[in-house]
């Protein structure tokens, strides 16, 4: 597709570099911030030259926030742990329920199947706060408020529709004849699902899982309303950095770095499968 002369090619490269800098700059700046004290961050004019310090990370890991107003106890590591538990468990549950459901929706057109699938998607449309108020009351009554189980359940509103709709598309892209051929070879439908449909939709399942994980990880409102301090994920816990003596930019930056690390690691890991999925072009042919 490239019919460009060297000059336009050079200009294209320059434009791409600018775009990359534009998008990467905030992340780079935050990483730099996380190794600085509040004073060096706030000095005017800002500078990229500073003596790096691990103070911020130390504070987060030990849970002792030292500020001009004194020592403050924070639960960052606990919050991080909660985030991991909530996200991993909700995505796992969603995959367990959503993947077979997606397969059913993709392969069996029954009366009302489209309506059910659409209803599940519509959970994503409802403003969360509207759902949350009555839900909070019910959860109080049922004893589900401030429990992992309750939160994981509510997180299904985020993860399940996502997984269902993305994975369904991947199942639909597999030629039914490939599955038919496996059944005619003498295998049951379940074994066909496990040995043919699942591996072939693998990249799609990985992508959907990753996306669901990111959405779950970044969720704020559900946990804000339904969880108290000991079950809070990092998104809610980060509020603690707004202290009486000001905003602790250094710690926030370090907190952000620590909390995007798991998602980033997961994305890098899953990328391999996503690329593999693209090269397995035979699925669609």
């Amino acid at each position, binding site marked *: *597709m*490239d*019919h*460009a*002369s060297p000059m336009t090619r050079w200009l294209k490269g320059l434009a791409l570099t600018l775009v990359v800098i534009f998008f990467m700059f905030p992340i780079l700046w935050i990483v730099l911030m996380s190794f600085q004290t509040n004073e060096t961050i706030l000095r005017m004019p800002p500078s990229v030259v500073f003596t790096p310090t691990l103070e911020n990370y130390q504070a987060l890991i030990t849970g002792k926030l030292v500020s001009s107003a004194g020592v403050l106890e924070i639960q960052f590591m606990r919050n991080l742990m909660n985030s991991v538990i909530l996200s991993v468990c909700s995505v796992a549950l969603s995959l367990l329920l959503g993947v077979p459901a997606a397969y059913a929706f993709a392969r069996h057109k029954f009366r009302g199947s489209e309506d059910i699938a659409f209803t599940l998607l519509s959970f994503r449309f409802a403003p969360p706060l509207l759902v949350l108020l009555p839900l909070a009351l019910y959860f109080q009554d049922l004893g589900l408020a401030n429990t992992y189980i309750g939160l994981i359940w509510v997180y299904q509103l985020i993860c399940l529709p996502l997984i269902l709709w993305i994975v369904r598309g991947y199942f639909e892209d597999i030629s039914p004849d490939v599955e038919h051929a496996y059944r005619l070879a003498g295998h049951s439908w379940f074994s066909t699902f496990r040995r043919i449909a699942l591996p072939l939709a693998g990249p799609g399942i990985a992508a959907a899982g990753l996306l669901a994980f990111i959405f779950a990880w970044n969720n704020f409102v559900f946990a804000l309303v339904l969880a108290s301090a000991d079950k809070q994920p990092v998104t809610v816990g980060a509020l603690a950095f707004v202290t009486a003596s000001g905003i602790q930019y250094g710690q926030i930056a370090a907190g952000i770095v620590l909390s995007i690390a798991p998602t980033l690691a997961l994305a890098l890991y899953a990328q391999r499968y996503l690329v593999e999925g693209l090269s397995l072009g035979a699925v669609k042919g």
Partner: protein
Amino acid sequence: MSAPALELDRVSKIYGAKAARPVRAVDAVSMSVAKGEIVALLGSSGCGKTSTLRMVAGFETVSEGAVRIAGREVNRVAPAKRNVAMAFEGYSLYPPLTVRENIAFALKSARLPREEVARRVAEIAHLLEIEPILDRYPASISGGQQQRASLGRALIREADLHLLDEPMGQLEPALRALLRGRIKHFVKERGLTAVLVTHDQTEANALADRIAVMEGGVLQQFASPAELKDRPANLFTGTFIGEPPMNVFQAQARAEGDALRLGLGEGVALDYPAAGFEPAVRETILKRGRVTLGVRPHAVRLDPAGAPAEVAANQWLGDQSHIAASFAGGTLVTVEHDRARLRPGDRIGVRFEPADLHVFDGETGAALSHGGRAA
């Protein structure tokens, strides 16, 4: 002096040029297509014919060599500026437009008068038998209809070059036979230049003035259908062109007095008197020793006094019978135009006239002789 409509000058397409093992999908292909000529790129899947066409259209970069359209080098010219019309294998109609709008699209963009557009759309729709579906949308018509609409969209344009990628692959056999004639007539009448890609030799034979046979990215032979059949340049073209395919046998050539003896294995040997081959050809064949012998199925003569063979299958197709026989350790196919009454297990004798023999180099596969004359 007018330049050829299309000229390929040692054109190559290399995928993964920086990888450890680059793939040469198209390897130094040179050919030139005269204005008003119909040329077919023929080969099996993966032979490089589609990559070649895509380089001409501008959807692939040219790795090496030059593509010239109407005398102008277009290696760095964007597809839209090459003045080329293309019908795609995967139809690629614009979904929000009706078939009529799809076909008229290029003419409308060229600001032709409305009556002119309507007239030409009607004409092409009649030609391709798509009048009843002109006002339907691509999603609601069959694959064959989409393909014809895509063909119509390309043929209606006035361009230096019309590129047709497997233009009739999705059509019913009867319709295909009908449209071949009509399309050829249409293209010739308007003096258009067309390059089509196909894997179907019947289509290439029926439509093209000349056929470029490709295999492994290399142009094997570029010649008229008759010449491809009578004088194949190498073993590949010889066995690729022709239905049923040419019979081939490995043979060991030896002089037997004045005669040329071709030993086929399993004790079968064919003797040809000196008159059957030009002296120089006979000399070359003897010098090579190991050669490959090719005989077209319809040229195999049944002769009780000939070399022994045993019938393995006799398939009657209504107007001809295809007979497979085990012969000299291989399979020999012969065509009879009447219904042959042979049954599996019957013993027959076969004979090949020198005039029907194709001899290829046993190692390189290059043709040495056709009908006793030098290739």
